[in-house]
């Protein structure tokens, strides 16, 4: 038994952290979030050079042949950097096609998704309509249909941009008649997608926690740093609890996706429920710790809160996932 990353995985993590910190400095994230499209093509091309879009896709289709664990390592870091990026949408589309697509569908779409040159984007939720992230600029959409999914070339779909409070991603309602149904079972890929979102939320929560800690160390009131007061320090301790518990559950679910698929449905819903709640709660508490400055547009923390809140609503809310957990736990 070893519940830790391998040296190679640590390498991926360190590379991602350094790369994203350099490319997505807070000023740049703010600039992107306030622009027409939040995605930076030059940075995406660099991510493609690093092999990230196809990290978990099979080598025969141009991917790196690694697993959901490695994908989750990247997504935790994109969450930490609050990187506006099509990475998660593209990875989700690739995972679904790889799991449920026919040979022909895989041959047609996976190489472009793996290289990042012909991106895919998959539906996150159907409320208020088929909602897809990073649809503009993608080549193919994976839209839900019944219990399965269908493929629609993006230029055959009607895209409507929907402005959500999270401006660090572009969201679209995508409607399309027809389409090419995927013959296989999409359930494991959908579960893996939830784990990806959970990982991103863990990263978001970690960053918000760090912001709150450093402020609590510096900010003085009544003659001492506010972090010395237990009303503040105990809240921060509970935030660490939130982050670490969500992280344990998320890493475990990622491992299940790769190595123990029979445990994935329960593990994925536990991770998604806990990570959604953790990220919303930790960002709320970060704002409370920051006080007035945390409520201003000028401070970055609100971007994290908004991402956490929207991600918590994608692919099932925490309450919906707990219902699934209860059923799978035998109730």
């Amino acid at each position, binding site marked *: 038994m070893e519940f830790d990353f391998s040296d190679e995985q640590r390498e991926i993590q360190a590379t991602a952290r350094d790369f994203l910190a350099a490319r997505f400095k807070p000023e740049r994230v703010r600039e992107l979030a306030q622009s027409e499209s939040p995605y930076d093509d030059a940075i995406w091309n660099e991510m493609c050079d690093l092999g990230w879009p196809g990290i978990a896709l099979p080598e025969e289709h141009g991917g790196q042949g690694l697993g959901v664990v490695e994908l989750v390592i990247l997504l935790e870091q994109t969450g930490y950097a609050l990187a506006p990026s099509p990475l998660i949408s593209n990875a989700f589309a690739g995972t679904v096609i790889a799991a449920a697509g026919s040979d022909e569908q895989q041959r047609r779409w996976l190489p472009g998704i793996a290289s990042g040159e012909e991106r895919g984007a998959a539906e996150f939720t159907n409320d208020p309509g088929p909602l897809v992230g990073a649809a503009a600029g993608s080549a193919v959409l994976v839209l839900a249909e019944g219990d399965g999914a269908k493929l629609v070339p993006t230029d055959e779909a009607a895209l409507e941009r929907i402005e959500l409070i999270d401006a660090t991603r572009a969201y679209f309602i995508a409607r399309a008649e027809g389409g090419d149904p995927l013959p296989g079972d999409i359930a494991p890929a959908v579960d893996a997608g939830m784990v990806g979102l959970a990982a991103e939320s863990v990263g978001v929560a970690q960053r918000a926690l760090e912001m709150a800690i450093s402020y609590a160390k510096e900010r003085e009131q009544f003659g001492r740093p506010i972090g010395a007061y237990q009303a503040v320090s105990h809240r921060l301790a509970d935030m660490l609890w939130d982050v670490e518990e969500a992280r*344990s559950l998320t890493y475990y679910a990622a491992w299940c996706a790769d190595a123990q698929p029979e445990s994935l449905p329960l593990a994925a819903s536990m991770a998604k429920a806990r990570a959604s709640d953790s990220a919303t709660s930790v960002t709320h508490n970060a704002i409370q710790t920051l006080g007035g400055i945390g409520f201003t547009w000028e401070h970055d923390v609100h971007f994290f809160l908004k991402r956490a809140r929207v991600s918590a609503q994608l692919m099932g809310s925490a309450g919906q996932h707990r219902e699934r957990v209860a059923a799978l736990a035998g109730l």
Partner: protein
Amino acid sequence: MDLTLTPEEQAFRDEVRAWIADNHPGPAPGGGDQAQFEFERAWQRKLHAAGWAGISWPKEYGGRGATLIEQSIFGEELARAKAPRPANVLGLVMGGPVVIAHGTEEQKERFLEPILSAEEIWCQGFSEPESGSDLASLKTKAVKENGGFRITGQKVWTTFAHEAKWCMLVARTDPDAAKHKGLTYFLMDMEQDEIEVRPLRQITGEAEFNELFIEGAYVPDENVVGGVGNGWMVAITTLMNERAGLGASAALGLANALDELIALAKERGRADDPLIRDKVARLKIGIEGLRLGAMRSLTATMKVGTPGPEGSIAKLQWSSTNQALTELALEVGGLGALRSDSLWAYRFLRSRANSIEGGTSDVLRNIVAERVLGLPKLR
């Protein structure tokens, strides 16, 4: 990352599981009385005869020298089989490891074997009425007297004091030294007239703990552990051992209890209630979070010697989950669960201590804030 057991770990688990299946003494008599204690003593003798009693102790001291992962597997298997606890749990988990770490060769020779065999039961004399979380403020005095010390003071929350032969006692040997520096760690013989043990009846109605009134009890010099004035450092070792004892087996105990709660919800026709379902799912997630955090800690400890930040929250996770679980059982069970002879009522009442014993949740949050998050100290 591989969360399955290696073939060696699996073989170890199978060995443990088979041994427990062959040797499980059946359900405990319960009631917390003498019969219960003798039952636990007999169980420990069995464990010891097969070499399981001091699983974490080095082989040279009669233990098994098991790795951390083996200890964790062993604890999980005991929890899975709902095996009784061994009678001398404080000696095994705290007393023995302290003597091994800080004791003289003579002390190791004298004290270790009877701990393993449960021939001599150990209790812990740390807390005092005026010194709980602020343990270093304790006032029990140890005054030098020909070849030993005379001890006077009062201790509280002393589990097994009425059964114990030895008490791990921390007392003040230097009233003029700074508060952490004037303390000494003693092994005090409980069989003396100068010690009065009074049962301390608790919220559940039973008396699991005791108060000790010590009026000039004698401890010879050879029963000082770690040297005069080093009591704080030695005591910290004991407390660290207490906290390291949590983890995977605690999660398994909770998982067993959750299964019982799910059965209760079905029996009571509450299985479809969305509020109950949501709370059960929260518990399931909390228990799994504790189990997985324990596995991360275990890996980190084996690799680098200390657990990561996830290890610092294990006790908080366990106590709050157990409290929430027993509260939900009362809601599901209705007044039937509140009958004075109900097991759920007992568990609920007992769980109130979970966030106090072994480090209060308030102090644990201070520790997380200061040592893990690096926040400034209040004091």
